Every structure is written in structure tokens, then in C-alpha cells.
């Protein structure tokens, strides 16, 4: 055997070996699409414009309040008809400078156009986009958190579409889609509750509750008072250790999530990380009373979700707080940002609507696999039989190449982690149907050369080389349309396009290179080959 032959055989055996290694065992290496393994595919529309509206409403509230505080006379302040800002009417023109100052504090970068006694204030596009983007980001984070709570394995949660306000959520193998949808759309309830210290606790600022429910109940003497409830604060370390603190809390919340207007990471006078938050004016009044009552005590921030209530933080109330407050603690940048985010997520700024749902039960998926694989196998057998009958030993050559093609495609799919969908199964077998075309093109050309009386080796040579250009052309055209398919399609259809393209690329290798090597191998070094089984 010549050197080049060894090299070629090595390449082929290596490629096949690698593929088998990659996709074996297929149950573990090939990702099944939701249509095959069952699960829910959801597309959620984030109403980002609602976030802009609530941002404007907040500004209107605050500006109105400031105008009153500073006793600046005005007749009305309303959101503008275009939904992009507000109009203040009948402002005392002598106080223009003061109005300007208020606007600079509350809406510093908005565009302000005074005309006589009327002021028109508009949110600029840059801020509007920012608000919209933040609302999508926030929603995305909330959804991730909630999917984690659902305990779904390998979920996909990502933005989709050019406008960037859609979120795709894929939940493989869930058995209760209604619950999942409920949790995802749940407007998580955020509450601020004063800590109900058990009798005997004197160090209100330093007290931390025990790690078990029973221990807390014990501290209350065996029964929890009627106006007190328990909620856990949970820490999960990076190594997986889980610590819980069971807080006794007053069951009536001082304020709830809807009262919260915003929360951001900020810095205090000492440049330590804190979380700044803003409440609605009305909630501010309630909070003022609650904080006055609980000064130098702890208040817990409780996040209620489908799974129950969790304490996310329990800061000490250092000052009477009205509508603006600060949560200080030992935050680093990330933890402060995380807390701000959770606070924001409690008050999802926008509604989330499901605009697309596809849920497939596990039994349907299994049936689809069975039917798809069965039809594909028969399709393969049909093609193989035809090739064997029509081209005899050369047909064997083609069938080997086809099998190799399938093996290589499966290997590549396992390697790239691409998902096998039902159309993907169709794509795989369709690839077989198209890959065999290359063999037919070559074999027919070889036959033609043989009919012209050429020697077997020459006929094979010319058959391969003359068919090659045509093979490239036919592959390119199919790949071009698969490309458009990919850009157009979603989920299952993309799976189909990917399988098709991978299969076609490999068929260039198997039908041209591998088949050629097989001929060379079989015909060996014999100088004078008299006949070819084709």
C-alpha cells in the first residue's frame, strides 16, 4: 500500500472513529428538541412601552410633589397626549428658575421647553431606549430566577427578534405547563415587613434569627403569635453549602412591591456600596410611619413567589425614611446590584404576555421519534437496495459512503451540541437522498466513459473529475436555500437547515473522497483492470 493510501485511509478511519466516539451513546450526546422530548416553548412579549409610561408617571408624581413642597403655583401637570412626556400648565413665571431646578434634579436629561406659563417636558429617545432596554433586562433576570425555582433542567431563556423585546423560554420535559406559565408571568410580590422580635431579644440591631423553623417557634415559647409569620433567608455558598435564617415577621407589610418605583446600586458618604430605592409618594407616607415605629430595628425585604416567601435582606432602619431610602450592608458591587435587581424584579415594570406557546407532551414526542426514525430507516434501506441492484459492487461502495455520511453528521451534531428536531430527522434522511445523488452522478459518468471504450482506471479517474464540478454546483444551490431557511426559521426548522447543511458538506467528503479511496483500495495495484462492477 502506498504512502498516500495509508494517509487517506487513516483520515477516513480517524474521522469515523472520532464521530462514533463523539455521538456514542446517542441518547446522551444528541440533544433532542422540544418537539421530540416534550416540553414547552414560550415566546414572551415584554411590554417595554409600559415601562416608559411608568417612568413618566413616576416623574410626574415627584415633580408635582416638589412643586407643592416649594409652593410653586401651577394649574395642572398631566402626561402628554403622545405618551412621551408631560405638560405642566399655568406655572407662575416668576418662579421659572425654581421650576428649572426641580426639573434638573428629577429629570436631569429630559428635554424641557417652556413657553410662557406652560412647560412641555419630553423623555429623550436615548433615555426612552435605556428604560425599555432595562425593563427587558430586568424581566429576563426575573424569568431566569423563576425558571431556576421551577427546577427545569437545561432551560433556555434568551432575547429574540430585532426589536429586542421578546424573550424565548424553553422548558424541556416539564409536566405541568400551566404552572410554569403561571410562575413566569407571576408579578412577584415584594413586601417590607418589620421583624417581630421574640421575647427576650434586646440587641435589635445585631440579632440574627436561628437556622431552623422549630428553633424560632421555640423562642416564642412554642407558638407563633397570630400577627407574626416566618420566612427564611437563604444563603447558598459557591461550594453548595446552604445556610438558612428563619425570620419572625409582622404579617402586615409596611409597604409592598407595587409601592416601589425604582432601586439602584449607589454609594453612601463613605463610598460604600448601597442600594438606593424610591417609593411612590403615598407609600412614602406609610413607610415614614413604619420606619419611625421601627427605628434601630430590622425590617425584612420579603420576596413572595409561587414557591413561598423568601427574605432577601433584613437591613437595620437607621433613619426615618419616606419615599427615598438606602439599604446599606456589606455589599460589594455585584451583591448591591443583585439586590437592586431583585427589588426591581419585585416590581416588574411591565406586563409580560405569552405570544406563542408550543407544548408537546412526552408521549407525542416518543411517537414522533418512532415514526420519523422508522420511515428514515426504510428510506435508507430503499435507497441502499436500489444502489446495490443497479450498481452492484459499486453500489456497495456508495452504501458504505452513505453510512459514513450519517455517522459523520451524528458526530458533528454531538460535537456542536446542535439539537435534533423532528424536521431534523427528516433533514438527516433527506441528506442521504441527496448525498446519493453525488454517487449517481459519478457512477453514471464512469459508465459513460466505459461505454466510450476507456480503460477502467481512466474511466474512474475521469468519472470522478468530470462529475466534480457538477457536484459542487448542486451542493452550493442546496446550501444557499438552506441558508435562507436558517435565517427564516425558528427552532425545529433551524434544526432541519443545520442537519441538511452539515449532511451536504460531509457528502462532498464521503461521495467523492471516500468512494474514490474505496475504488483504489479494491482495485489495488493491479495494472490492468479488465472490468468494473458498476
Amino acid at each position, binding site marked *: 500500500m502506498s504512502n498516500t493510501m495509508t494517509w487517506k485511509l487513516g483520515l477516513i478511519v480517524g474521522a469515523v472513529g472520532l464521530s462514533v466516539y463523539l455521538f456514542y451513546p446517542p441518547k446522551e450526546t444528541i440533544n433532542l428538541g422540544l418537539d421530540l422530548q416534550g416540553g414547552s416553548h414560550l415566546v414572551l*412579549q415584554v411590554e417595554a412601552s409600559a415601562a416608559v409610561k411608568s417612568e413618566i408617571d413616576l416623574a410626574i408624581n415627584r415633580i408635582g410633589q416638589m412643586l407643592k413642597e416649594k409652593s410653586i403655583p401651577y394649574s395642572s401637570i398631566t402626561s402628554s397626549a403622545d405618551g412621551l412626556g408631560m405638560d405642566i400648565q399655568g406655572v407662575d413665571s416668576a418662579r421659572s428658575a425654581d421650576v428649572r431646578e426641580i426639573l434638573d434634579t428629577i429629570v436631569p436629561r429630559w428635554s424641557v421647553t417652556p413657553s410662557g406659563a406652560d412647560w412641555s417636558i419630553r423623555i429623550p429617545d436615548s433615555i426612552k431606549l435605556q428604560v425599555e432596554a432595562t425593563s427587558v433586562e430586568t424581566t429576563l433576570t426575573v424569568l431566569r430566577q423563576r425558571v431556576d425555582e421551577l427546577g427545569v433542567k437545561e432551560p433556555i431563556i434568551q432575547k429574540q427578534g430585532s426589536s429586542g423585546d421578546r424573550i424565548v423560554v424553553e422548558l424541556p420535559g416539564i409536566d405541568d405547563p400551566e404552572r410554569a406559565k403561571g410562575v413566569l408571568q407571576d408579578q412577584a410580590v415584594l413586601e417590607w415587613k418589620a421583624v417581630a422580635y421574640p421575647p427576650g431579644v434586646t440587641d435589635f440591631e445585631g440579632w440574627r434569627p436561628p437556622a431552623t423553623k422549630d428553633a424560632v417557634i421555640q423562642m416564642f415559647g412554642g407558638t407563633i403569635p397570630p400577627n407574626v409569620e416566618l420566612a427564611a433567608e437563604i444563603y447558598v455558598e459557591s461550594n453548595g453549602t446552604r445556610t438558612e435564617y428563619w425570620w419572625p415577621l409582622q404579617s402586615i407589610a409596611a409597604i409592598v412591591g407595587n409601592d416601589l418605583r425604582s432601586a439602584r446600586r449607589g454609594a453612601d458618604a463613605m463610598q460604600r456600596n448601597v442600594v438606593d430605592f424610591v417609593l411612590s409618594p403615598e407609600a412614602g407616607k406609610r413607610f415614614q410611619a413604619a420606619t419611625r415605629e421601627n427605628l434601630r430595628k430590622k425590617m425584612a425585604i420579603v420576596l413572595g413567589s409561587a414557591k413561598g416567601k423568601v427574605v432577601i435582606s433584613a437591613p437595620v432602619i437607621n433613619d426615618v425614611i419616606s419615599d427615598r431610602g438606602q439599604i446599606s450592608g456589606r455589599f460589594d458591587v455585584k451583591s448591591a446590584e443583585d439586590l437592586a435587581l431583585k427589588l426591581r424584579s419585585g416590581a416588574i415594570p411591565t406586563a409580560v404576555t*405569552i405570544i406563542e406557546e408550543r407544548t408537546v407532551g412526552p408521549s407525542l414526542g416518543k411517537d414522533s421519534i418512532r415514526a420519523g426514525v422508522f*420511515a428514515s430507516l426504510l428510506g435508507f434501506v430503499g435507497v441502499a437496495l436500489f444502489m446495490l441492484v443497479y450498481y452492484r459492487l459499486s453500489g456497495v461502495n456508495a452504501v458504505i459512503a452513505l453510512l459514513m455520511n450519517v455517522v459523520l453528521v451524528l458526530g458533528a451534531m454531538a460535537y456542536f451540541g446542535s439539537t435534533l428536531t423532528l424536521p431534523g430527522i427528516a433533514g438527516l434522511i433527506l441528506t442521504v437522498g441527496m448525498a446519493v445523488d453525488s454517487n449517481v*452522478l459519478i457512477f453514471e459518468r464512469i459508465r*459513460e466513459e466505459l461505454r466510450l471504450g476507456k480503460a477502467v482506471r481512466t474511466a474512474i479517474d475521469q468519472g470522478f473529475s468530470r462529475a466534480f464540478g457538477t457536484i459542487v454546483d448542486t451542493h452550493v444551490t442546496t446550501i444557499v436555500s438552506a441558508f435562507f431557511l436558517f435565517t427564516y426559521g425558528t427552532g425545529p426548522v433551524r434544526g432541519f437547515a443545520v442537519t441538511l447543511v452539515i449532511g451536504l458538506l460531509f457528502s462532498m467528503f464521503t461521495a467523492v473522497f471516500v468512494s474514490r479511496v474505496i475504488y483504489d483500495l479494491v482495485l489495488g495495484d493491479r495494472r490492468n483492470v479488465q472490468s468494473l462492477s458498476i
Partner: protein
Amino acid sequence: MLQLFHNPKIDFMSKRRLWVAVSLTLIVISLGILWTKGIHRGIEFEGGAEVQLTYKSTPDVASVRNALANAGYSGAIVTTIGKPEENEIYVRVPLVPGAKEQDLAPRVVASLREAQGSNPINEVRSQSYIGPTVGRELVKKALGAVIGSMAGMLVYIWIRFEFQWGLAAVIALVHDTIITLGLFSLFGYEMSLPVVAAFLTLVGYSVNDTVVIFDRIRENLRAKGGTVTSLPDLINTSMNQTLSRTILTSLLTWIVCAFLFALGGPALRDFSFVMVVGIIVGTYSSIYIASPFLVVWQEWLGERAKKKTAVEAPKTVAKKVRTGKA
């Protein structure tokens, strides 16, 4: 040696007017079917809800339909699917304009549960809901992709051959798509995402036969130094030379699609129908539409050249077909 055609000498070109007439008739009929029957659009395009469920015993389609009507879902489609012993039905409910209906699918299931009586629902096998905006966008995207991929073919063949060859291939593709769509409509299949995928695949695949013939025509042209006395004769020869492989390649892919159609389950049926029909139409058009167009184009150019020469100086009309750069 087993062979499909022994040295065929079929005169494809002489009857080209007949075949063009046949194709035009088929196209007109297809358009007529599409015009009158339209195409069932799946919920991906139309919006709405779709559920598939099994009952403990054989469900009564009429009473299911009644239950839905009583629950206020007008225009619901109810059919049995799958094997009879599986007691499975398929329900489709259209969107109610202006309503917020993201819970449409579960609500449909709930109202069927309420009305189930002595034959309880066994399992909800699938449920889907598509909102109204999604569908509209999808129609646009699907059309864009089909037109885009045809344009892609035109450009590629233009680069590899010449403009009129690309045009010929695309005309054949449009022909295939229209006739397949007509049959699709006639048999009442439903347009869905995978079906659009099948049409795109068909565009990519049915051009293959055309390219195989084109390659051979070009090869034969080159062998004659680019000048031929009779283009129809040369095309005839080329088509006869490639006839076996044209039929064989199509046949093999067709076998695969036929298995998918017959045994691949309901989810793949609409999809494979397009391929099963499209491959046949595509093979026919490669032979009888795409290649004759080259002759038509040349004759048309010739006519134009003649008219031109009548006015200007008399020149001999060189029957030369440009054969591309490659």
C-alpha cells in the same frame, strides 16, 4: 449492466412549444385552485390555539364541536387523528379579534374537560398558542426567504454560467413552486413552518437537475469551441446524455421522501407531500422548461438582432452562445 435508458435519443426540443403550453396550462390551473380554494394556513400564520388530546374511549367529534361552540369558541375545527385505537382528536380554535388570549389553549382544554362527561380526557398530547403579531411577521419572513433563495440561485448560476441560464433555472423554480402549491391546495394540506421549510428545500433541490443538464450543455458547447450550428440539437444531445442521472437522482431522493410521507407520522406528512410532488414537477421542469428557455432566449435575441440589422448595416447573425467564464 442494469440501465434505465439504453442510449436514449429522445427529441425533447422539437415539442418544446407543446410542453411549454402544458406547463402554462398547469400553472393557470394551479393559480385557479389557489384563487378559489386558497391555502389552509396553520396557526403559525393565522394565530389561534391548537390542542391534541386523547380520550379514554372513542371520542364523538360532533359533541366535542358542540362543547366548544357552547363555550363560545366559534369556527373551531375538530378532527380525529392518529390510529383509531388511540382515541385522539385535534382541535383548532381561531383567534377572537381584539381579545387578550394568551390562555386560549388551556381554556379550550378546560372547557373540553368540563364537557367530557362519561368519556374523560386521557392526556393532553400537545397544546400551542400563536398570537396575532407572530403570524403576520412569519408570512413576511417566509415570502422573503423563498424569494431570497430564488434570487440566490439566480446569482449563483449567473456567476457560474451566464445570466440567461440563471433566469432559465429561476423560471423553472417559479413553475415548480406554483404547481406544487396548487396541488398542495387541491389536497387541502395545511401551510405550516415545516412546509415552508420544505418549499425552500425544494427550491434548493429542484435546481440541481437543471444544473446537471446545464453543466453538460456547457461542456458540449466548449467541446465545439463555443459555436454551434443548432443549439436545440446540442441541448437535446446533452439532455439525453444526462437523462439517466437526472431520473436516477430524483428517483432516489423521491424514494426517501415517499417513505417519510407514508410512514413518517402526521407531523411530517404535509412537509413530505411538498417534496414528493415537488421533486416530480422539478425534474419535469428541468427537462422541459429550463433548457428550452435557453433556446427561446437565443431565438429572442436573434429576432432582436435581425430587427436591428434590418435598420443598420447587414451583418451575419452569429449563432454563438456565450459559455461563461469558468
